[in-house]
């Protein structure tokens, strides 16, 4: 495991030197078993930092907020923002760099390697403790965790509560960093898309029923969109807000304006929203799993985004989030791109 004191030391140092505006990291509230995002501004705040398998959040999301905040800052502070990232999270930074969302100098990356472990999936854990509230989680050796609930303690094999995306992880070591802590051994996964392959093997009707039932649950809270670092559009397809309407705008024009989808959570509009989000993330989704984690009704969103990740790899040989100089998936092409589906 990464030595937390080393991480704290690095963080303390950069804050003392005034090198960064603040550092986005993880802390644990006194009465909580999970980590939460924390924003450290002073060297003494650094003691709040934690690093363990409950650090599941993708903090890169807050770099997007920082850009918006920066635009309103007076006077402007051009120092970078420090951020603690896991391997998966670091790929999000690469995507944002690739898309020129910010410059490399705007971010100071404290990379921490997950080594052979990963983060816990809260839902898997709840299942294991049969819904009893978790009071504490100890990570002992990395293979076995110890859960404390109101009814006592129980041992759990790590592999049973680690997030699916961690079990299939292809980026356990951060791919971009200013300081890197932890082991640098990269994991290999034999079949990273096995869940998608399983879905593909179902019949058309089975797939339709599966997705229809899932999208029926959607309450259009847009937590998936809000949690995703890559969903940074100022105006999203679903937010038709920028239509100039005056007293003289005729009803027919208002009725015919481009409204791609209705706000109502009906099946057809829900599926439209999710399809649009998935296609807009093609070649950009780095499987941090935040969308699925944030969803209050457990829609398996990773399974949707992963399909396009698989197609990007298999059709076009494209891997998202490793090379910031790579062009975006759909703004480049190869002469040999498949066209067997084109008449």
């Amino acid at each position, binding site marked *: 495991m990464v030595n937390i004191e080393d991480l704290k030391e690095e963080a303390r140092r950069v804050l003392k030197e005034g090198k960064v505006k603040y550092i986005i990291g993880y802390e644990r509230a006194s009465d909580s078993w999970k980590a939460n995002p924390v924003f450290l501004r002073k060297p003494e705040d650094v003691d709040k930092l934690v690093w363990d398998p409950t650090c599941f959040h993708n903090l890169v999301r807050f770099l997007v907020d920082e850009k918006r905040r920066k635009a309103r800052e007076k006077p402007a502070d051009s120092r970078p923002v420090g951020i603690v990232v896991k391997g998966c999270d670091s790929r999000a930074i690469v995507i944002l760099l690739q898309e020129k969302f910010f410059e490399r100098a705007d971010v100071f990356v404290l990379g921490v390697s997950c080594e052979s472990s990963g983060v816990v999936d809260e839902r898997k854990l709840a299942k294991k403790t049969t819904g009893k509230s978790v009071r504490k989680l100890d990570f002992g050796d990395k293979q076995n965790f110890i859960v404390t609930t109101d009814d006592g303690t129980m041992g759990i094999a790590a592999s049973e509560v680690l997030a699916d995306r961690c079990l299939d992880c292809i980026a356990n070591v951060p791919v971009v960093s200013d300081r890197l802590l932890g082991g640098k051994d990269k994991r290999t996964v034999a079949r990273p898309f096995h869940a998608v392959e399983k879905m593909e093997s179902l019949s*058309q009707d089975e797939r339709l029923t599966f*997705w229809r039932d899932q999208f029926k649950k959607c309450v259009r809270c847009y937590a998936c969109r809000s949690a995703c670092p890559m969903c940074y559009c100022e105006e999203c397809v679903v937010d038709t807000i920028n239509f100039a309407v005056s007293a003289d705008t005729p009803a027919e024009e208002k009725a015919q304006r481009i409204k791609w989808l209705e706000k109502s959570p009906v099946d057809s509009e829900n599926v439209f929203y999710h399809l*649009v989000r998935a296609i807009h993330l093609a070649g950009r989704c780095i499987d941090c799993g935040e969308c699925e984690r944030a969803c209050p009704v457990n829609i398996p969103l990773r399974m949707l985004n992963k399909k396009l990740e698989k197609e990007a790899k298999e059709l076009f040989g494209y891997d998202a989030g490793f090379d910031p100089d790579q062009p975006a*998936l*759909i703004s480049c092409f190869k002469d040999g791109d498949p066209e067997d*589906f084109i008449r």
Partner: protein
Amino acid sequence: MTEEFEPTIVAFLCKWCSSAGSDLAGVSRMEYPPNVTPIQVMCSGSVSPLYVFSAFNRGADGVLVSGCHPGDCHYIKGNYYARRKLALVKKLLEYVGLEPERFQMSWVSAAEGQKYTRVIKDFVNALKPLGPQTKLRRNS
């Protein structure tokens, strides 16, 4: 005798090639089924996946995107981008259970009026047995 189902096809045709090709079919009096609602776009590369999803959401039974042959794009590279983007769209639609026959792409040049009619005829024949599209159609 029951009325045969006539599918509605929304076709995004690039102005310089495919739309011109469809015009050629027209002025040459070539017969082909009237099931197409053509929408002219400047380039197949400008067809956003949103257009395709929206067409299905509004009830299209089939969606066609047709552009210039690779190498002949009026804007040099647009059709290559279309080839990539729409490959992904096709895979995604199939994945969520839409019949794969409903979304098609073709390369039709301004001289290929005949090919255009064949593309449409075959498309209509492929859609007829599938019936009306209900899987993505807007419901209230």
